């Protein structure tokens, strides 16, 4: 124990900084920059929520945990934060959502969406959630919206921080950051490491729900991930942003536990990935622009071997590699009363892979995006218009195709008084099928080159009220929307062993979102987000049918924190969170026995920065405080059985978890 204390103090000595006054000043500068960015995002006609991740990011379990508070967002998990997760936005699946990192779209032509569990929360500064549509620069495929993640930026002077923690189920996290802004150079290096044993207990009915089950330990649910972020930028002699090189590399390996009633022993999945982005700002008399290039490489391995394979299938190993390269340019210039922001991007993706069965499947997609956003307005009103066309040239084996998805948007914002903004936004978009949907994967998915793109539209109407009265800041937002998607692509089983993607269905979603944020200085804050939505499948005649599987009809998230400083005790922050998710059917026929019942999760946190060492913060976080792990499952005969709490059938969610951490921060 004494050795640990000595080690901690030694580490503290290495990161102790300057006097408190200077710390407060740089914190103010940093806070103002982030706050300004968030206001800009949230004040546009397109509904958006900007989340400050600086405080919660370093030791968060996953990015999804951080996004949950945005209205309209619902995260579905197959286990803990390392397990595959899918994010639905306004009832739309992950394939309709664009995820970008520092402007680089992470969705690729081979995947159905982006697995958020792969993204490093410790290295993020901000997340912007665009609801209903996305900025033109993010492409044409955003049928439901987009999530843009912004990596950490350097602060003035030398900043270092170290966060580490451990918790339930073998959870372990480490985040270290060093950044320097001196003269015209700024650099940042950050390392994030996460891991877990995944050994949570869950209710296992053993495949026989009418017989007594047992609580058992989750097996083969371990995971480890390491991510590294490096950024070097130069400012020009006028202090403006200059060329910037960003590199984000990561490695993750995790066990593949399988369903709770059919656990595995051996199978695992790993991924290595690297993203590099070089940007070069351009400045003119009245315009500014940016050139950029980016390269993303990713290597995925799925090893289904070991003592007990996934679904007890025959063992196999599957590997795939994806590489993409893009060049892009944006511009922003006034045209009289208008502001024009054209965007162009050329992206080439190569997908290769296969199981150790039929050899490699290789396909490429080359995409040329050309679009613009046009805006006009005053502080009282703003009109926006965006349009983009993307030419997609696909090639696989002996087949080549050309597709032309597009997007179009119109928006308006009006502030009759300072505190109130009314906005409306409409968008249309088309999403091209992925390469496996078109050409198959040489495994269980057979290609369908005749697939049509998914097409959709979204209309929003909302209002935002903001007010600052002395130390109190308040923001209230409410939005109503309707969206529709036609030619939704779904997999159909065509025989005992094969699936094929087909344009099968249309969906319509009606919804209302609201968010209230109250803050008193930096001492107390409350954020409440709620959403109601009616997501339905439409049949061929346009008649409303069943609810879209996996989408709850209601969602509520509430976060509150209060800080106080008792005499000589330092600063204490107490936080609480509540997450309510309404009932969600898990199948297309809305079978009651397969519904995920409504549930409420309660979280809490406690943090302390001692007065004798303000650079140190000790925290204790508790998630699922009420240890909700089971729920009744109704049977057709009127009885009910116990089932594990789950978002996907057969994949139990963990119960109560504790996580203790310490953070040491030096700020100039």
């Amino acid at each position: 124990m004494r050795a640990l204390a000595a080690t901690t103090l030694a580490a503290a000595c290495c990161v102790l900084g300057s006097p408190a006054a200077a710390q407060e000043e740089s914190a103010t500068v940093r806070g103002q920059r982030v706050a300004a960015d968030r206001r800009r995002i949230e004040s546009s006609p397109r509904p958006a929520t900007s989340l400050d991740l600086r405080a919660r990011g370093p030791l968060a379990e996953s990015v999804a945990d951080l996004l949950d508070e945005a209205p309209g967002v619902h995260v579905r998990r197959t286990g803990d934060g390392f397990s595959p997760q899918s994010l639905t936005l306004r009832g739309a699946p992950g394939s309709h959502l664009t995820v970008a990192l520092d402007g680089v779209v992470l969705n690729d032509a081979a995947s159905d969406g982006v697995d958020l569990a792969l993204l490093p929360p410790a290295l993020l500064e901000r997340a912007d959630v665009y609801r209903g549509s996305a900025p033109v620069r993010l492409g044409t495929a955003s049928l439901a919206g987009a999530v843009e993640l912004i990596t950490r930026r350097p602060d003035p002077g030398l900043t270092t921080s170290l966060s580490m923690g451990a918790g339930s189920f073998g959870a372990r996290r480490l985040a270290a950051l060093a950044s320097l802004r001196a003269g015209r150079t700024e650099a940042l290096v950050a390392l994030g490491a996460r891991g877990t044993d995944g050994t949570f207990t869950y209710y296992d009915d053993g495949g026989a729900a009418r017989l007594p089950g047992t609580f058992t330990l989750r097996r083969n649910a371990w995971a480890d991930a390491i991510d590294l972020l490096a950024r070097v930028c130069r400012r020009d002699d006028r202090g403006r942003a200059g060329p910037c090189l960003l590199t984000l590399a990561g490695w993750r390996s995790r066990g593949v536990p399988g369903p709770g009633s059919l656990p595995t022993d051996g199978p695992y999945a790993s991924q290595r990935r690297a993203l590099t982005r070089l940007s070069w700002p351009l400045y003119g008399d009245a315009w500014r622009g940016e050139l950029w290039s980016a390269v993303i490489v990713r290597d995925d391995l799925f090893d289904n071997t070991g003592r007990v394979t996934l679904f007890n299938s025959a063992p196999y190993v599957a590997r795939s590699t994806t590489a993409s390269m893009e060049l892009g340019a944006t511009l922003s210039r006034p045209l009289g009363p208008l502001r024009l922001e054209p965007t162009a991007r050329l992206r080439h993706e190569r997908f290769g892979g296969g199981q150790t069965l039929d050899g490699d499947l290789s396909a490429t997609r080359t995409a040329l995006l050309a679009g613009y956003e046009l805006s006009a307005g005053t502080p009282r009103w703003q009109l926006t218009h965006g349009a983009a066309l993307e030419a997609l040239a696909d090639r696989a084996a002996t087949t080549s195709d050309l597709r032309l998805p597009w997007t179009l948007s119109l928006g308006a914002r009006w502030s009759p008084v300072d505190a109130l903004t009314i906005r409306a936004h409409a968008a249309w978009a088309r999403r091209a099928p992925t390469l496996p949907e078109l050409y198959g994967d040489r495994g269980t998915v057979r290609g369908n080159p005749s697939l049509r793109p998914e097409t959709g539209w979204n209309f929003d109407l909302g209002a935002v009220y903001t007010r600052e009265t002395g130390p109190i800041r308040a923001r209230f937002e409410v939005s109503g929307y309707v969206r529709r998607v036609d030619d939704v692509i779904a997999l159909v089983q065509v025989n005992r062993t094969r699936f094929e993607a087909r344009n099968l269905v249309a969906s319509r979603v009606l919804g209302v979102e609201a968010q209230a944020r109250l803050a008193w200085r930096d001492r107390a804050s409350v954020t409440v987000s709620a959403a109601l939505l009616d997501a339905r499948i439409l049949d061929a005649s346009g008649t409303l049918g069943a609810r879209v599987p996996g989408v709850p009809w209601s969602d509520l998230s509430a976060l509150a924190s209060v800080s106080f400083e008792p005499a000589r005790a330092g600063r204490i922050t107490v936080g609480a969170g509540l997450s309510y998710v309404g009932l969600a059917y898990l199948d297309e026929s809305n079978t009651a026995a397969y519904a995920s019942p409504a549930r409420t999760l309660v979280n809490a946190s406690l943090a302390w920065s001692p007065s004798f060492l303000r650079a140190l913060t000790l925290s204790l976080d508790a998630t699922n405080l009420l240890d909700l792990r089971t729920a009744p499952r109704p049977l057709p005969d009127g009885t009910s059985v116990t089932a594990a709490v789950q978002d996907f059938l057969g994949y139990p969610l963990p119960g109560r978890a504790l996580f203790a951490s310490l953070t040491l921060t030096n700020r100039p």
Partner: protein
Amino acid sequence: MTRRSLALAALLCAGCGADPTPPTQSCAHFATAALTATMAPARLVVTGVSPRYDAGRLFSVSLEDFSVRDLPIEATGDTVARALGPFVALLHRAIGDQDNLTLYDPADGRVCQVALLTDAERTAAPTRPLINAHDVVALDARTLLVARYNLDALAVVDVASARVTRTVDLTPFVGTAPHAYPDALRRVGDEVWVTLQRDNDPLRANPTQPGLVVRLDATTLAVRAAVALTHPNPYGPLVPTTDGRALLVSTFGSYNTLGDGAVERIEIATGAVSDVVDERAVNGNIDAVAVLDATHLALRVSAERQGTSALDDLRVLRFDTETRTAQTLLRAGTWGAAAPVVVGERVVIADPGEGYARTNAGLRVFGRDGTELRARVSIAPSLLPYDVQPAR
């Protein structure tokens, strides 16, 4: 499980929540001579599943007027039923969901659920294995035999105690396959026959090893003989010919290959095997067969896309074994698992419907002569009939 894990589990189990009491089992109720009784069917038990096989419901369809009603017993996205006298045996085999045998009495709703592992199998395996029961027959008034597709042994179930009391080892018959993959069971006189798929290429689904039929003594369950089939992948029930001298089984080989499967005939007395209908005669994979009369068969044919020709469809044919001609009773663009069922003078065919919502899915009824008697019996919106079984 380590001591630390046990302590951790005990600590963390605090606050698990109040769990509902499991429904009452009534297993002794089913251990009666009625288990082996042969009764004239009065209804069809139909499993309707959601389009992506996530969920299922059970229905009773009257053979008198084809009225449909829900059965108040749970099903999964992969549940099949077998009639055992007046009772219904439900074989649940949904990965991640239910994987068991459930006996159900439609008359009074009593239920007996059986986890299909012996105590020794439960403790010997590193984790609980997938069982995937494919068929069940009653051996006597209190004993059932279950084909466990993912395990290399049949399970002998004592109904009254709802336990697996012994197993019948099939590992000597796997050949070059990783497992035996037992599929169908049938009582044949004083024997029980079991078909083994013995798929020697389960990942690619391109098997080359012919299937096997193992003949067991119905009392001792000792192996009397093993009959080698001509083609790989026997699938679906063993159905008796009208003369009672043989059984027919469909073997589809690989869905990717045309010509590696057929309807095969096995002579009961001699064990001789011959082809009745080759895949090439119907230009598709025959994965279910039913006997209409001495010269006609109902064949379910599932086609795979062949080169540029769009043969991707499901057909149910009335095939004349003498003239080698076929009448198409059903054609659909999606796959459906239910095999044709002959009940009295009628043959019931499952139509998987079209599109995401499985529009027009349901049952279609024909006479043995191919005359359409009922255009469609719909079981429920957006559900396709996955399994159809005659029952009391």
